[in-house]
């Protein structure tokens, strides 16, 4: 490893602009003649739109236009799509209602747009929006999954009778039933995985700029995947053909999944820009984020696990109701199916699994992928169940896990996934040692003497990342391939530009991706720059989500690097009159091994571009590209253990210690990996203790601001004790597994297991607020 190569804690190159206020986010951009959009959104969870009267608004100063849902339908802008087809157990395709960008007839959740005001300033657009009169006829609404599937419940979409999108199954029901018939013990658990609002700190924003002469659109948007946005806007929403649509995602202030999706506001801004003939800017406020950014989680699950007399798991049965909200968002259908139920084996040998997932429409904000996407729900369920089982079977929870760990790899689970490698004992051992698990009883007794309830909670998570092998996901219904592309451009002076289809919105790609180049060529990272986030610069890419950028995106860069290096070696060998096989690359030089003959990278690059003396038949230039499609998912795994103290008088939980032992395969930059884990852990802790997107029975959101929705703040969470155990991923040449989601996947079960251990009661739903914990302690 060089000082800036793989494994080095290189300080981030991108930081200077962020710490000096020079980041360039969408809302920071101003275009000449730019207008401002303000959406008129439904205050009702379910209503008919009878009439929209914009006559008064149109007379107000600075108003350019008021555009409605009917107009966008009339102009044949496409309805929003769901990109993953799921088939129900009866063989029928999933049942979806239409989702127009603005509602022409019916609104189905609070916050759905019905019209937009375009004006000379944001304030003038807001003023005019107050004067637009929308006549609604309220309809009965339903927000809860169980209420939504009852007969007589309000119906959202005629296409989906009973509000059911699909009833999907996975696994072998017969084998699972047989395991339960022979079980020595059966452990049952009902859990709710609470609905969350993603809340990236930068609210979504879009600027659309239509050039009438070129019939060309430019869209600046807060996206994790600008090429996917262009593809969808072009192929499905009829905005413009791809070569007439440039999508730029500049600095993006966090995503966590919520900025994967192509939202109505982007479609409307593009369409409106052409209609009014001027650039249109929209920047959401925080309440709009709560109302319209796709939410996460919201599962209600009943699960049963069968054990034999030796406490070995023999079967696992799961039934989950997934709340999709009012419309099927872009990847929503895959989250509670192929991203959730395929992980139900956890870290354990489970011979038979059967899961049924029922997807349900409700009058709430659409739900889609949020950090972890399905895998946190699976991990939480399994790890709560393991803890429940340990309590019921009266064995140590860590030992019960150890008894059931998968120890032979590769391991084919009964639910599609084939785990390639791992060492679950190693991460459990590391975490137990770090928290002094053996010393816990003494600490608990000590706390008890001071009137406090001490608890310890284990969570052994596994996830499927490096999303994803295209052929595999295609066979499961995905509408896209999930490879990544890269291009390596060596400039004539020897500096290097890496173009990537991955998108950084906090992950630090501008540093870590350069570290691969530094590792291979021995050049400083300052000589390398990363180009991303612009469809005019990068040919194509699938973007960043599912902890895929290092495992898939960086591997694509590696493949392009190998091609470039091969050509460069030929040029160097020709110049040095040596054999290509004898050329090695060290410290920015191409050397003839075993001699002192060498040529520096800039001279090789210059030779490639002057083309005065290249090997016969070689094309000039030094630029190579690659598309990399992974052969399997990657399987990051680890153990989190937290120790908490609960005050029985107030129900408040305090952290004593929180340790994490993760296996992410090879680490490119441990500093950045640790940062990813810290952030993920706090999102998991936030779910466990604080966060809950709540609707009342009529579909009114009651947590639509930071005043009402409890975001984790600095004094809600502890500092963390992190360590790594490493098994290299055999599926990619760098051995990388991915680290972006682990914390959010594993943390919440550790917290709830610790609190329930402390209070001596097993049933406690998230978020475990002081009020809820106090009531649980004092319940009869």
């Amino acid at each position: 490893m060089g000082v800036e190569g793989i494994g080095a804690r290189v300080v981030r190159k991108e930081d200077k602009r962020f710490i000096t206020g020079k980041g360039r986010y969408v809302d920071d951009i101003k275009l000449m003649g730019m207008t401002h959009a303000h959406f008129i959104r439904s205050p009702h969870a379910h209503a008919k739109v009878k009439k929209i009267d914009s006559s008064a608004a149109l007379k107000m100063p600075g108003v350019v236009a008021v555009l409605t849902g009917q107009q966008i339908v009339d102009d044949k802008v496409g309805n929003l799509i769901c990109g993953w087809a799921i088939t129900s157990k009866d063989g029928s395709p999933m049942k979806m209602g239409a989702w127009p960008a603005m509602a022409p007839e019916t609104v189905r959740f609070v916050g759905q747009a019905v019209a937009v005001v375009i004006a000379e300033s944001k304030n003038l657009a807001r003023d005019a929006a107050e004067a637009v009169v929308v006549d609604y006829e309220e309809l009965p609404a339903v927000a809860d999954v169980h209420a939504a599937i009852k007969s007589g419940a309000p119906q959202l979409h005629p296409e989906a009778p009973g509000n059911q999108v699909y009833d999907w199954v996975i696994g072998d029901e017969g084998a699972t039933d047989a395991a339960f018939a022979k079980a020595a013990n059966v452990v049952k658990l009902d859990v709710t995985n609470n609905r969350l609002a993603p809340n990236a700190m930068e609210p979504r924003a879009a600027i659309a700029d239509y050039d009438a002469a070129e019939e060309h659109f430019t869209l600046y948007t807060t996206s994790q995947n600008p090429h996917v946005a262009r593809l969808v806007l072009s192929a499905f929403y009829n905005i413009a053909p791809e070569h007439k649509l440039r999508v730029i995602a500049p600095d993006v202030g966090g995503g966590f999944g919520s900025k994967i999706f192509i939202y109505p506001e982007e479609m409307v801004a593009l369409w409106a820009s052409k209609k009014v003939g001027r650039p249109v800017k929209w920047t959401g406020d925080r309440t709009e984020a709560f109302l319209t950014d796709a939410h996460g989680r919201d599962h209600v699950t009943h699960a049963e696990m069968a054990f034999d007399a030796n406490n070995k798991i023999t079967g696992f049965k799961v039934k989950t109701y997934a709340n999709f909200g009012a419309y099927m968002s872009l990847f929503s259908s895959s989250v509670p199916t192929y991203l959730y139920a395929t992980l139900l084996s956890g870290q354990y040998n489970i011979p038979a699994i059967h899961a049924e997932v029922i997807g349900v429409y409700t009058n709430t904000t659409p739900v889609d992928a949020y950090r972890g996407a399905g895998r946190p729900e699976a991990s939480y369920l399994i790890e709560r169940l393991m803890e429940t089982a340990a309590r019921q079977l009266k064995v140590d929870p860590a030992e019960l896990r150890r008894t059931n760990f998968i120890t032979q790899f590769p391991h084919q689970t009964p639910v599609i996934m084939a785990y390639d490698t791992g060492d679950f004992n190693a991460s459990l051992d590391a975490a137990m040692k770090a928290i002094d698990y053996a010393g816990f009883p003494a600490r608990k007794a000590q706390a008890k003497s001071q009137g406090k309830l001490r608890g310890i909670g284990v969570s052994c998570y596994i996830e499927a990342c490096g999303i994803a092998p295209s052929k595999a996901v295609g066979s499961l219904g995905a509408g896209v391939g999930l490879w990544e592309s890269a291009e390596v451009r060596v400039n004539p002076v020897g500096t290097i530009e890496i173009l990537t289809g991955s998108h950084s919105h906090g992950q630090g790609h501008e540093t870590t991706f350069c570290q691969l180049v530094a590792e291979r060529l021995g050049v400083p990272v300052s000589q390398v720059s990363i180009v991303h986030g612009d469809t005019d610069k990068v040919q194509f890419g699938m973007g960043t989500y599912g902890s895929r950028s290092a495992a898939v995106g960086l591997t694509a860069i590696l493949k392009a690097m190998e091609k470039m290096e091969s050509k460069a070696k030929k040029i160097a060998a020709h110049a040095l009159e040596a054999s290509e096989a004898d050329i090695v690359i060290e410290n920015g030089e191409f050397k003839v091994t075993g001699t002192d003959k060498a040529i520096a990278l800039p001279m090789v690059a210059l030779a490639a571009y002057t083309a005065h003396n290249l090997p016969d038949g070689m094309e000039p230039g030094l630029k190579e590209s690659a598309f990399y499609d992974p052969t399997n998912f990657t399987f990051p795994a680890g153990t989190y253990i937290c120790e908490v103290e609960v005050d029985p008088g107030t129900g408040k939980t305090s952290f004593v210690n929180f340790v994490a032992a993760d296996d992410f395969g090879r680490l490119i930059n441990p500093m950045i990996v640790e940062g990813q884990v810290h952030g993920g852990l706090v999102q998991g802790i936030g779910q466990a203790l604080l966060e809950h997107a709540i609707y009342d029975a009529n579909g009114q959101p009651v947590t639509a601001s930071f005043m009402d929705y409890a975001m984790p703040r600095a004094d809600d969470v502890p500092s963390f004790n992190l360590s790594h155990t490493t098994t290299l991923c055999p599926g990619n040449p760098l051995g990388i597994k991915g680290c972006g989601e682990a914390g959010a996947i594993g943390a919440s079960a550790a917290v709830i297991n610790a609190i329930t251990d402390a209070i001596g009661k097993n049933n406690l739903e998230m978020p475990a607020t002081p009020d809820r914990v106090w009531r649980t302690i004092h319940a009869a």
Partner: protein
Amino acid sequence: MSTVKLTVNGKAVAVDVEDRTLLVQLLRDHLNLTGTHVGCDTSQCGACVVHMDGKAVKSCTMLAGQADGASITTIEGIAKGDELHPMQAAFRDNHGLQCGYCTPGMIMSAIDIVHRYGGQLDEATVRAELEGNICRCTGYHNIVKAVLDAAGRMKVSQAAE
């Protein structure tokens, strides 16, 4: 419309604004100082924190007119040329930022915290004092480290002056 006269990052400016203009709008929209961010609309997130006459304020929560005659310092105004403020350097060196959106407000709040406590800070105090700044990326671990690190650096740089 009113004319607001104030000093921003050491420069005297006079800006004609609608009376309802917020200080953050004056900074971002009129002076193009886009380092100060807006992350919420309820004074909760702290992405908009700037210094007014040396004290941290949420610039989304006051009218531009309330800053008439005041001296405002934004994230763009704390480095001395190419030399970063010790808090900026500490955030970079401790990986105290990821997406960067909350960072300007965090840094401005953190400088104010160090000033108020005369650099005598511990982890619990930093965590309690950061109550008005929300970060969704870092889990705060490295932000807390950065503030404690900078508290030491600021003492050293003050001693040097």
